[in-house]
């Protein structure tokens, strides 16, 4: 994307209008559907405008880490499938996929919304490992916020499989859900020139100066932050971006089913 394209987008933003007609801090339409994969213990499809991801939760019984013998294991992975964009290639996760997965993971982990101790079966020997995989279906920008929502929706949808005599019966689901007490939602606020926007489309993503992902829980507390982009931010910028992030998280939260 060249300088002219950036100028073009900036000119629009100065007038308070987006490339696609939205206001600066409008999200595209959000659609959440759960139970989209019968093979997974929990799953969800989230569409934000044209961007679409599927998240699935798999559970297994494993040995705990030696330093946390009475805690379960949580893992978040993101697959930027080459099926979803001409820009994604096959191969091991690249830095974009790794960052996405780690930011989503941190939001869930650091909000302590997940009671890992409840995932313990036999201390030091057997715990539940909860693996959340997010697969992109169509990338039209804003993958991070979409992935964050999908992970949460899939966790809410998840039910433990039957576990008896040391064997997991994946065909039989119990009605017990995952121990999730808080709901962390990431919102990525983007700075282009002097303007702040949310939910970028691909063209806007290519010309960003800086971005800040603000993950927050119901009571407005922030549980994870991640700054990206090549430019630095002033404290005032950060203040503005956090305000927008918190405000927008409230909106996105409404799309999730209330527990």
């Amino acid at each position, binding site marked *: 994307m060249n300088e002219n394209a950036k100028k073009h987008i900036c000119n629009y933003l100065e007038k308070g209008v987006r490339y696609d007609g939205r206001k600066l801090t409008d999200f595209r339409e959000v659609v959440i559907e759960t139970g989209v*994969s019968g093979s997974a213990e929990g799953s969800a499809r989230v569409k934000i405008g044209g961007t679409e991801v599927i998240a699935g939760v798999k559970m297994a019984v494993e040995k705990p880490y030696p330093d946390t013998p009475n805690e379960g294991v949580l893992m978040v992975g993101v697959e930027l499938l080459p099926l979803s964009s001409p820009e994604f290639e*096959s191969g091991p996760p690249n830095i974009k996929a790794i960052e996405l997965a780690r930011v989503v993971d941190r939001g869930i982990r650091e909000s302590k919304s997940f009671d890992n101790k409840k995932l313990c079966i036999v201390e030091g020997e057997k715990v539940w490992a909860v693996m959340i995989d997010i697969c992109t279906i169509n990338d039209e920008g804003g993958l991070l916020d979409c992935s964050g929502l999908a992970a949460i929706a899939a966790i809410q949808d998840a039910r433990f499989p039957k576990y008896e005599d040391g064997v997991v019966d994946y065909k039989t689901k119990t009605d017990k859900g995952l121990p999730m007490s808080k709901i962390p939602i990431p919102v990525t606020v983007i700075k282009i020139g002097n303007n702040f926007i949310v939910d970028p489309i691909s063209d806007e993503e290519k010309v960003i100066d800086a971005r800040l992902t603000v993950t927050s829980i119901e009571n407005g507390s922030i549980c994870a932050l991640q700054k990206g982009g090549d430019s630095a931010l002033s404290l005032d910028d950060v203040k503005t971006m956090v305000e927008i992030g918190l405000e927008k998280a409230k909106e996105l939260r409404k799309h999730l089913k209330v527990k």
Partner: protein
Amino acid sequence: MYKKRFDGRDWDETRPIEAKVGIIKRANGSAMFKIGDTIAYASVFGPRELYPRFLQNPERGLLRCNYNMMPFSGSGDRVRPGPNRRSKEISMVTQKALLPVLNLEAYPNAVVDVFIEFPQTDAGSRCAGICAASLALADAGISMKDLVAAVAVGKVDDKIVVDLNYNEEAYDHVEGGVEGAPVADIPLAIVPSTGEISLLQMDGEISKEELFEAIEAGKKSSKKIAEVLRKALKDKFTGDTNE
């Protein structure tokens, strides 16, 4: 004895099928193919420039297929992301199954990439993947002579069956302490207009006569599947079901 199919189907009846094209907007062509509880998504990119350059062929384009299960799509444990021996082999036979219908000489030096993904599986995934891929190729406007319809056939106990599901594939019958013959599983891909076979694999145990009978049954089914595929393509352009 296997007297009645687990899900009550006729011996030559496939599971319910749904097909839809144009589901992934960033791709040049895309499709969803669902058969029973197996769901395949396919997207096509290209013809586009082929790198590394030494793979380029001035006579014809390259078809590159990639079969991949999403980590949560298996019926048991999580599938580790990334290619493995199984997915690499299936990618290769998928490519061979599609090649006979493509006019790749129209795309010198270029590549047509096909990516096939599964959010959930219940046996028959390579065949579902081939159906989705052939639809996505047509949706992308790639020059081709026909679609490819694929279905698994096989023998469970002494019955020739079409479109085995997971329970049938895993059927393990013991009668009077004697183990029954292993289930034969035969993935097939057929070019509907000529009846040619472009994918044929098999594992299990089956006699020569039964094999031919099974292939005949597969051919019949593939005609029906081809109709569903064609309808899905037409629907996109007549707007019957899309949006």
